């Protein structure tokens, strides 16, 4: 029986080999289908993983307090703040709110982020690219970000002119590799570099501002530099117990609301809410596009069916000969089924290879980081095989059912 199957396999492969060009056009539908399914799903998967990676990095229990009334047309705009897209601020958060969050029951760590405008003068000249942010000692723990060199701001640094740099900012300001102890001027004051962050793998908190370009200074220094006009655009907090994040978020909301006289001009977000929303959308989009791609697979299947039908008609005489020498209906059926599945499986494999090539170019030339998982490869190949079997059935049955004498007579 085994050798029998091999015989059919050979017969099937022989006829596939026989008509190369026609078979290529047949497979094209499947190839396009498989390639697009894999590419689309892998891009979706990549985006999802980036989003998830962020959450993982920050921790799902991170609570963010932001001013809520975001007005894009606000006149409050300067070079550095202008880059905070979506974070134009009405300036509703202040030191008082920071204190409220810090003293809320169940909060373990708190760090405000204030943005200071102005130009930095370093060894290499002026530096305008990055944010200058006032913050406190807890920030590095809140972001789970480690230091490359030196240490982060500590409670001892309150009121001191010290700074911690993002890796890109460090390169832009100084000639030396490790500018620990070097200094730059900002608002006429000299700041000494205390530490340099490792590269931020992604952009926490908002997609637009890159913390690798940022300079961090103590919160109270930022306040004093700007006579308390530096807008606090975020307060980050982490609860003692991750499970209580929601509860803590509620008490923070109540606390700030009390201070603000009942105005809800701020919002308290939990990180996992953000993520749930965005990955939900990504999932939905991925499914939508994958659905469209699946239709092209289906169309490819119909193409295979057509070619098989033509092939059956063309080879009726051959079927007759095979039947005359003793092939049973089942044997003819399996020959044509194997032929159809070989076609579609070959198409599927070529599609997978093409998808990998496309993935390579996407990674090389775009910001997308598509991830091809083995599940989707298996699925796409499996579906293409299934398409071949399903759409190969009708022509194969047609071939097998033909009466031997009729098949022999047709030329």
């Amino acid at each position, binding site marked *: 029986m085994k*050798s029998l199957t091999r015989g059919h396999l050979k017969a099937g492969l022989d006829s596939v080999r026989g008509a190369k060009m026609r078979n290529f056009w047949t497979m094209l539908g499947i190839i396009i289908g498989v390639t697009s399914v894999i590419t689309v799903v892998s891009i979706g998967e990549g985006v999802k993983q980036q989003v998830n990676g962020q959450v993982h990095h920050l921790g799902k229990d991170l609570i963010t307090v932001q001013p809520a009334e975001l007005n894009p047309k606000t006149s409050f705009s300067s070079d550095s703040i202008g880059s905070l897209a979506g974070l134009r601020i009405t300036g509703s958060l202040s030191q008082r709110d920071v204190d409220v969050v810090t003293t809320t029951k169940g909060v373990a760590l708190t760090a405000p982020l204030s943005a200071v405008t102005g130009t930095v003068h370093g060894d290499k000249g002026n530096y305008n690219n990055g944010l200058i942010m006032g913050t406190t000692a807890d920030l590095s723990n809140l972001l789970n970000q480690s230091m490359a060199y030196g240490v982060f701001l500590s409670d001892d640094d309150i009121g001191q002119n010290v700074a911690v740099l993002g890796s890109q900012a460090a390169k832009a300001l100084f000639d030396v590799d490790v500018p620990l102890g070097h200094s730059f001027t900002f608002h006429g004051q000299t700041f000494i570099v205390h530490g340099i962050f490792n590269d931020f793998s992604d952009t926490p908190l908002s997609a637009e501002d890159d913390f690798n370009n940022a300079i961090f200074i103590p919160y109270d220094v930022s306040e004093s530099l700007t006579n308390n006009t530096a807008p606090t655009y975020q307060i980050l907090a982490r609860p003692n117990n991750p499970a209580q994040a929601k509860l803590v978020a509620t008490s923070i909301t109540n606390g700030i609301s009390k201070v603000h006289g009942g105005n809800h001009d701020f919002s308290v977000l939990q990180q996992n809410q953000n993520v749930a929303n965005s990955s939900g959308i990504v999932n939905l989009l991925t499914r939508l596009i994958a659905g469209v791609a699946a239709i092209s697979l289906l169309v490819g299947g119909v193409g295979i069916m057509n070619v098989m039908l033509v092939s059956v008609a063309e080879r009726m005489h051959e079927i007759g000969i*095979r*039947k*005359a020498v*003793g*092939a049973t*209906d089942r044997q003819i059926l399996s020959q044509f089924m194997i032929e159809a599945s070989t076609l579609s499986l070959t198409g599927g494999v070529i599609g997978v290879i093409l998808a990998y090539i496309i993935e390579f170019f996407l990674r090389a030339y775009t910001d997308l980081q598509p991830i091809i998982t083995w599940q989707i490869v298996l699925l796409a190949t499996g579906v293409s095989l299934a398409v071949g079997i399903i759409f190969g059935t009708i022509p194969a049955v047609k071939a097998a059912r033909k*009466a031997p004498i009729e098949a022999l007579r047709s030329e």
Partner: protein
Amino acid sequence: MPIIQLEDVSKLYGFGDATTLALDEVNLTIEKGEFVAVMGPSGCGKSTLMNVIGLLDRPSHGNYQLENKNASRLRPNQAAKIRRDTVGFIFQSYNLLPRLTVLENVALPLTYKGVTLTRRLKLASQMLERVGIQDREYFYPNQLSGGQTQCAAIARALVNNPKLIIADEPTGNLDSASSRLIMELLADIHKMGNTILFVTHNPELTRYATRVVYMHDGSIIHDERTELGKVATRARKVLYTLPEKTSEEDDLAGVSALMKGVPDKAAPSRKPRKTTKKRTKKAASSKTSRKAAS
């Protein structure tokens, strides 16, 4: 022991007005080891008879026994298995698969039997040696001469050791030298004990046969045994001298039970021809039964 027994076997093609009667209640018994030549003008039903006997086609009516087993109402798969194991076909147009080599073509019936690849090719090679074209094993059919191609087709027919070989005008496309070669080959096979049926238009080739059957309009009109090496001389006479006597009785009883199944519209045009056929058929069947008895 008879290998083939046909009783009142008829074959109809088409429907309604277009109905044609390819075999008209044929009775034929062929013993094991006979070498039968079937002769007759084109369209007389020779090929249909071969196809029915070879289980490529099913009779519309009547009873057919192959090796004493009823073979008139087989399911397609059973028929395929019997074709594979018991019957070897040789066609006028060779019918080799053009995309396979000669060796693979010959091995094809073994493929469907489930013989392993190496054994298949070995058996096929032996068979090609027997028909004398082993040196053409890896040629494709279109690279061979007509005679060689037919030799390959014979090898394919023989590879399963079938008891019955059916050759439908095996020499129809060949020159006389190749024809002789093919017929000698068939004669050799006959000597090994196989039963062979072959269709031919060439009276010379009845030399090889032990029995000659003449057909006309779907009926067997004459059936004679001949000695090996002698041409059946009655061939032409019987073919062209149709019986002249017409009996009133036959005319009245002319519409056979079979024709009742044909819609009325067809009947008037068919009736006159039908009556003559009936006569010839009766004559033939009486002869057949006499032969079978003897």
